[in-house]
């Protein structure tokens, strides 16, 4: 990811109380930033971005899946399972959540 792109996304993060049209863009920026921090092992910063997404859109599947993944990386399988179960309640068709929950349950 280029520095320019990151700056753009940081700018996007600053936006407050966006209109409905801008919500999607803000979520997209937050998810991208979250993933950037995740892949650089800055898990607290990543988690913060994913939680911000949930403040805007409490059902956001991608944000929830990433929070569960951070729990997995921290050897917190029970917490990860809880989040995957939440995803399945909100999105019963989520193949990613189903597959990961099965794997953590030893199936």
């Amino acid at each position: 990811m280029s520095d320019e792109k990151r700056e753009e996304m940081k700018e996007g993060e600053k936006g407050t109380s966006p209109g409905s049209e801008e919500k999607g863009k803000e979520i997209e920026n937050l998810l991208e930033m979250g993933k950037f921090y995740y892949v650089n092992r800055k898990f607290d910063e990543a988690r913060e971005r994913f939680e911000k997404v949930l403040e805007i859109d409490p059902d956001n599947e991608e944000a929830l899946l990433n929070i569960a993944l951070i729990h997995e990386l921290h050897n917190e399988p029970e917490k990860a399972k809880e989040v995957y179960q939440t995803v399945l309640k909100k999105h019963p068709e989520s193949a990613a959540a189903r597959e990961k929950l099965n794997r953590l349950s030893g199936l």
Partner: protein
Amino acid sequence: MRQFAVIGLGRFGYSVAETLIRKGAEVLAIDRDEEKVQKISDIATFAVAMDATDEKGLKSIGIQNVDVAVVSIGEDIESSVLAVMILKELGVKEIVAKAITDLHARILVNLGVSKVIFPEREMGRRLANSLVMPTVHDFIQLSEEYSIAEIPAPKEFQGKSLKEIGIRARYNMNVLAIRRKVPTIEDEGETSYREETIISPSADDKIEAGDVLVVLGENRKFQKLSKLI
């Protein structure tokens, strides 16, 4: 990579074969039940429906060329013993066989198998260990006093080198390996992670969040260490 044969594709045999295949090994899978053979045929190097006591049949598929044969015929003791006997006669060097009773195990040992396993007893032992020490991922008892265990690194270890932590001095334990989850991002933007293992880490290797330590030490010390988690 060594070549393996797995004879008997019940739950245990299938699981052994599947894990070997996942680790990149070549596996010859055998069972007399065509349905079980069909189930594994997509992933196994070669899967064949045949009677494991058919000496000519086993020879014709080249079983004598494998490095290790796993005989996981548990319930039918006669077939298990005959299969092992034939494999020995055909010159298979290493045979691991599943037993269901002590007598069955003794017969297998007398036939010269390299290792006898009781999957249920092993599972029972592992379950008990995981209940006593829930934070310990895996536990292999080497003797009455010593074991190898996989333990998630306590938070207070994070960011410190093995030298700074002083595991050997504080707990009289040796870190044999560090298992680390490395965050990844796919082309489609999906996050995931891959696992890497640092074998025989140096004293300067630092512990990161989420690391799992593979440690060798005294059993009583594991409880002390696992309390930190």
